[in-house]
């Protein structure tokens, strides 16, 4: 059975998925560059999460569904409608940054225009918020679905349980995702939780919990499709544990070579969903090696242009510091 075809998506959609996955990778590489040369002060990266995130996000209807992401969700936000320039404006702390207008650190993705709700740095506070957004759908009799994400470490926060518990009680139209990359900064899963799978927590709140391999595009897409469909049709929430890989250090302030074993680090490339996805594209005849390359060089150009455009944009000015503390 062909792996990508199993998703049921069209060739066009699969190629579009690939473009977004690669865009996420190349854009993040650009953010690291900007950090290294001091044009931004920080980056936290979704490398190794891209395939899972794109497959996840494609299962939703971004023009009406809400997304409450966490800091690694750049690729999912691209599917939801944010542009590379939007992301860059945030990293550069520019006035037109749709996430925060330069007020939050980089990677705090949000966009009113695209139904992507702003998140804080305090992990997992978006979970209770997401239940409010989802309860709004019930009140409005609207058929939008709400998706919210966090990491496997942050998923242990009490607020996450409280939110999932409420979602179970109200059968809210929503999907919870735990992106499990095995680490919370330096803390491995053995020190983070003792249950076998984080997805086990869904049933503990009265709804399904499913673990999926985030490097398996079709498996991920189908699991989220089903979860989104269930939510939309009134069958209530689902928790999905998305198994992914953290290819980089936790953030620009971290060096994972200190606490990850040599074997772990050496094995990372093999666990890179992007490479696997490219192999599948070629094997299943979607794209040739040449075409992959062409897409890559297209995207690099797009990112260069976006970077230039973003850099030219104005910074927030000191006199705006008290704007929008309160209404009026």
């Amino acid at each position, binding site marked *: 059975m062909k792996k990508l075809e199993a998703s049921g998506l069209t060739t066009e959609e699969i190629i579009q998925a690939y473009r977004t996955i690669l865009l996420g990778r190349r854009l993040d590489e650009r953010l690291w560059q900007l950090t290294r040369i001091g044009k931004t002060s920080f980056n936290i990266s979704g490398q190794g999460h891209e395939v899972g995130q794109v497959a996840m996000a494609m299962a939703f209807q971004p023009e009406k569904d809400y997304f409450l992401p966490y800091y690694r969700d750049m690729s999912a936000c691209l599917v939801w409608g944010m542009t590379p320039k939007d992301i860059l404006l945030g990293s550069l702390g520019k006035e037109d940054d749709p996430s925060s207008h330069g007020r939050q650190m980089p990677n705090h993705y*949000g966009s009113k225009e695209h139904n992507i709700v702003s998140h804080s740095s305090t992990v997992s506070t978006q979970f209770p918020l997401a239940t409010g957004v989802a309860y709004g759908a019930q009140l409005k009799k609207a058929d939008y679905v709400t998706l919210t994400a966090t990491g496997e470490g942050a998923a242990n926060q009490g607020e996450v349980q409280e939110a999932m518990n409420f979602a179970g009680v109200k059968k809210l139209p929503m999907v919870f995702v735990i992106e499990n990359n095995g680490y919370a900064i330096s803390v491995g899963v053995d020190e983070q939780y003792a249950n076998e799978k984080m997805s086990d927590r869904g049933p503990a709140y009265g709804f399904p919990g499913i673990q999926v391999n985030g490097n398996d595009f079709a498996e991920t897409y189908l699991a989220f499709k089903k979860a989104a469909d269930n939510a939309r049709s009134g069958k209530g929430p689902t928790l999905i544990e998305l198994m992914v890989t953290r290819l980089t250090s936790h953030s620009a302030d971290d060096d994972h070579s200190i606490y990850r074993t040599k074997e772990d680090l050496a094995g990372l490339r093999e666990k890179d969903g992007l490479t696997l996805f490219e192999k599948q594209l070629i094997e299943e005849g979607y794209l040739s090696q040449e075409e992959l390359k062409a897409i890559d060089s297209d995207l690099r150009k797009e990112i260069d242009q976006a970077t230039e455009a973003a850099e030219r944009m104005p910074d927030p000015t000191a006199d705006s510091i008290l704007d929008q503390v309160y209404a009026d």
Partner: protein
Amino acid sequence: MTMAMMTYLEAIKKGIEEEMARDERVVIFGEDVGGVKGGVFGVTKGLAEKFGEERCFNTPLTEGQIGGLAVGLGLVGYRPIGEFQFADYILPAVNQLISEASRMRYRTKGDWTAPVVYRAPYGGGVRGGLYHSQSTEKVLFGQPGLRIVTPSSPHDAKGLIKAAIRCDDPVLFYEHKRLYRLLKEDVPEEDYTVPLDKANVVREGEDLTVIAYGMVLNHALKAAETLSEEGIEAEIVDVRSLYPLDKETLVKAAKKTGKVLLVTEDNLEGSIMSEISAVIAEEALFDLDAPIRRLAGPDSPSMPYAIALERAFLVDEDKVRTAMRELAEF
């Protein structure tokens, strides 16, 4: 204007009810808030029946969730009112109130907002012991983006809750649980609001200025009547807008008499009165004829249960009167 006799509690209930009738985006929830119980104090009694279980409902026993649920509903256009059963139980929700509600507007420069109301019964003198008597407003005070208000009369209770519900900012609305049934007065049946950002001079006088809110404000008002017979006339200001403060009114009242007594039933240190003192010391220093005096509970961690201890903690009418007299005679 048609008036109706109402307790402080009824006035709050009426305000909520009117807003729910006028704006279907208003929803209310919390522990025991829905169903037939309608809150442990009965503030929401009847609302579920009137407006349906979708708009007035029980939540599980999880305050962090109450805090965040409200913000989420606010994001998509609702006017949620989350009730904390006691002000003491805001504490599990502090993260949501500070990290989310109070910063949503600022961190998106207004793209997303949290037009939510959190209600919480606070205050002591009800034999509630350490965890059913607290004044927790100091914990949330000074978080720009968040408003904190509290009414000290039935009239203000109705007008202030209505203003809070219509406000585009997150508002933490404290209700003094001793005042719920203690105060009763004529309240307009018409629609009116009380501004969220204005202190209120509730009594005029020349000899000293008392600044307070809640139960102790009512003590000051009573004390002022008896002191008036002694020839002491107190200017009394109800803070009402605990945060941000209405500095203008407060400073003006301080300057007027030159003698300032700040009264709170909370512990002395770190109370709202400390900020008010600082504001007055900054802006009215040369108008003062006496040191600014703060009257407050002792610095014990909240209010003990045993009668003698609760009494020792409480700032009662006598203590207020004595402090007023002393200051007037300074």
